[in-house]
């Protein structure tokens, strides 16, 4: 295993910019790692491969790497991450690669435009490696709802990598990419980050453009970075974030200084920082090993000088129900456009059938069960007879959750919780029980409903199964830098402890069988 694949993006960038190594060499190393551990992109490798990628663009990546090397050789100014490879969740539009959202319904579609974040990555000289696997249309918590087969957790290939962005997090965890972009609607960056032992950030709503992100739930969706270190996440955050005129919900304000905060945090001092432990996000239903790791993390924060207090957010009990009304409602509308008329799959057009019939047959064949379920729940929640009792009440729940956060942030600078109630569960364990699956997002959903910043940083492994656990740090809207500072301080403290986990799993068995 080449050491290049285990290096942080910041260190890779330093070496590339100092011309100790070329972007082409770095890119090639990652392509080789993908080749070695990912398995065929259609998931046909059975339980062998990580299957983080749905599409790998080796030629495109090497061309982008050459261009980055040229720009660096010319000596002009380059962005801090120029030449560093990155993986893209396959719900971001790309002109040079397919965009499938892990759905059959987008079969054959090539977007004619790049998502704003993709355009920004390209402009900054990063090297897109390919598109990563996800739960179909980002609906799920395990990446098992992909039409192209599940992604496997690199720390234990029999387990899920979380979801919906299991592909992005797994690619980073497995050393297939130093960085990845994900999208987080109810935890889809943070929850897979936690169970794959990587960093995942959901920025403040509106601070990263959604233009070109195939919408799941527009009022909740937010693009963010996946990385192996807090600083790396911050570096990527600064590349893709900031105002965009193509997204009118985009906040027209300077991005919080997240890189500066990550660097400051790494110096280790949290004196004067008030950390609130959310009482409602622990206890019954939480895996003891997760709570043990979390308690340890909180103790560490205290040792770093933070003032730790208990806070209560009673309305968080409404978060899960509200989310599973709002997200399906918006999704039922957002996914209506997949109708076999202008792009993607068309089924049953025999010259006799009507548009309505062809639409229905195509959507039936093109969508998986979870997507259909959510479309129907959303259709129900918005219909005249249920609107007030369901969607309307969910909007009121949102108000209460916003109020809880506002009150908590009056006494605390950041709030912390476990990122997810359990470590990675076994593939297949929850597929037939949607409600059990939904519980995986219990801790992450409140921040989506309120729109504030939140991230997950690895906090060791659970003593009961040895699998990664995540610490969630939540900050007020537009104060993402606070979460970065606290997470970076914690990360630095943990990395010096004797039981710090290895950064990348060996996956040696995989490499040799290939």
């Amino acid at each position, binding site marked *: 295993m080449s050491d290049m694949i285990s290096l942080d993006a910041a260190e890779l960038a330093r070496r590339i910019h100092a011309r100790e190594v070329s972007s082409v060499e770095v890119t090639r190393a990652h392509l080789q790692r993908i080749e070695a551990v990912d398995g065929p992109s259609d998931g046909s490798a059975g339980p062998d491969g990580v299957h983080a990628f749905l599409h790998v663009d080796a030629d495109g990546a090497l061309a982008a790497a050459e261009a980055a090397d040229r720009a660096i050789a010319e000596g002009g100014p380059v962005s801090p991450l120029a030449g560093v490879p990155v993986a893209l969740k396959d719900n971001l539009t790309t002109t040079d690669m397919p965009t499938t*959202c892990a759905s059959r319904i987008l079969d054959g579609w090539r977007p004619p435009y790049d998502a704003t974040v993709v355009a920004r990555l390209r402009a900054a000289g990063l090297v897109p490696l390919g598109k990563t696997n996800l739960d179909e249309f980002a609906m799920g918590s395990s990446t098992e709802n992909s039409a192209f087969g599940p992604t496997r957790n690199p720390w234990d290939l029999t387990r899920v990598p979380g979801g919906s962005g299991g592909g992005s997090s797994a690619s980073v965890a497995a050393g297939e990419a130093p960085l990845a972009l994900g999208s987080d609607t109810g935890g889809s960056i943070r929850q897979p980050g936690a169970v794959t032992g990587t960093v995942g950030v959901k920025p403040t709503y509106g601070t990263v453009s959604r233009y070109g992100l*195939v919408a799941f739930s527009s009022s909740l969706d937010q693009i963010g970075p996946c990385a192996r270190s807090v600083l790396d996440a911050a570096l990527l955050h600064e590349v893709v974030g900031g105002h965009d005129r193509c997204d*009118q*919900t985009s906040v027209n304000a300077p991005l919080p200084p997240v890189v500066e905060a990550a660097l400051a945090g790494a110096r280790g001092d949290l004196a004067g920082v008030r950390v609130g432990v959310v009482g409602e996000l622990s206890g019954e239903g939480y895996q003891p090993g997760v709570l043990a790791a979390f308690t340890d993390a909180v103790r560490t924060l205290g040792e770093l000088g933070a003032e730790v207090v208990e806070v209560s957010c009673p309305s968080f009990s409404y978060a899960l129900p509200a989310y599973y009304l709002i997200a399906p*409602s918006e999704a039922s*509308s957002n996914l209506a456009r997949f109708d076999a*008329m202008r*792009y993607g799959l068309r089924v049953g057009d025999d*010259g006799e059938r009507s548009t309505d019939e062809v639409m229905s047959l195509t959507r039936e064949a093109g969508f998986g069960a979870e997507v259909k379920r959510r479309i129907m729940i959303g259709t129900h929640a*918005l219909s005249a007879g249920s609107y007030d009792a369901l969607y309307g009440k969910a909007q009121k729940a949102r108000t209460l959750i916003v109020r809880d956060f506002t009150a908590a942030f009056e006494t605390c600078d950041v709030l912390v919780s476990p990122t997810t109630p359990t470590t990675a569960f076994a593939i297949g364990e929850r597929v037939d029980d949607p409600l059990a699956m939904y519980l995986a997002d219990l801790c992450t959903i409140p921040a989506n409903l309120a729109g504030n910043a939140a991230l997950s940083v690895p906090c060791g492994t659970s003593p009961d199964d040895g699998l990664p656990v995540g610490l969630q740090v939540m900050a007020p809207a537009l104060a993402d830098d606070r979460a970065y500072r606290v997470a970076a301080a914690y990360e630095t403290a943990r990395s010096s402890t004797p039981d710090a986990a290895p950064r990348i799993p060996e996956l040696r068995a995989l490499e040799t069988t290939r």
Partner: protein
Amino acid sequence: MTAVSTPGVEAAPYTVEEVCEHFDPVMGLEVHVELNTATKMFCGCANAFGAEPNTNICPVCLGLPGSLPRVNGAAVESAIKIGLALNCRVRERSGFARKNYFYPDMPKNFQISQYEDPIVFDGYLDVPLDDGGTWRVEIERAHMEEDTGKSLHVGGATGRIHGADYSLLDYNRSGVPLIEIVTKPIVGARDRAPMVARAYVTALRDILRGLGVSDVRMDQGSMRCDANVSLTPKGSPVFGTRTETKNVNSLRSVERAVRYEMGRQAGVLLSGGTVRQETRHFDEQSGTTSPGRAKETLADYRYFPEPDLPPLEPGSAWVESLRAGLPERPWERRARIQTEWSLSDEELRDLVNANALDLVADTVEAGAPPEAARSWWVSYLLQQANKREVTLPELSITPAQVARVIALVAEGTLTNKLARQVVDGVLEGEGDPDEVVAGRGLAVVSDESALTAAVDEALAAQPAVAEKIRAGKTKAAGAIVGAVMKATRGQADAARVQELVLERCR
């Protein structure tokens, strides 16, 4: 009086007067107006009528996955202006909503519209009626939304949706800004209801044209009217069941459609039947309405707030600046012009009917006396328009150019006859009046010695005539004047030539 029914066509058996013996009609009019902004409602594609299919489309108006709408500020301003012109209140905080239903001409399968909080609401329009009266139509609301694409039905009876083999879609119109203007129920118009409906849509068209916010071409679909009609049995406090008639594509059709529906519904009710709540289509040819496809369930559009667009809070400074820029109401302007130019009712009507009022007003604005401006437009230019089979506004001459021609006549550079030739030149695309004068060499010959020489030459050529004039038969001078005018190709001032002829024969 019996209800006559012809197979295939539902006749409207009752006249409005007969209907009103038993019922009071209630109307609601919904008018959709396409704004004439440069770009669409939510993207930067050109808002243009008649372009090659699918050439003005982008990821946004094609509803591609990942695309997001971006509100056109000019469309919002137009919506507010329309509201102000209709005496509406402007909502302090309004927003967009999604109206969800599947239809292939709508790329997202939802329409971005407004629902509970339209940008303007609660207004009225005092509509001048043909009989000289005024009718106040109360406005419920006007809201912003986006238009759909257009489908072409192929096979079967081509062009018709029923029996077609397949359809072809053009999304150029998809996302064009629309304002939907909805009246409150119009009650009490009785047998004048059809006339009120037509007068309202006419007044609305004139107002919107005056605002410059829309082309308001019913024939091109930039203004479309749906008419809701119901009949209330006399003395009943409850409105009857209404029908919604679509596809009403001219002012005349608005009146006919309402009249037909009143008669038809009366026929149904008086024969003991019940009116079905349904959508009906107006047929221009027969002047009748026919039912649309019966729907198995009542539409449930599942409206919810559009999450991709932040709310609008126009604020009083913005609204007041728009109010200050509103033009005079068309009929108020008409009344003012009539007084200022001392026009008879008939003269004013002729101007309006000929589409000439604005042109004359603009010509006067450009410096011409009202009388001359009016006479040019309603006589010679109207002839030219008729000859070319276009309307006056479509003639390729501007009010400023007409004013210049009038000025050239006034200063003696052109005779009326020459002026007509100059106008012809402008219409032929030869440039401005001064360019045509120079290009065609049309200025009056005012050089006295040249004219005198021409007169002498003509007298010498016709000695017998010259003798008669000298003998005092001044009427004979006409022949010499004619010869001189011919020699100067009409560019001499005939009166001056006459004087010279008499002078030389004295």
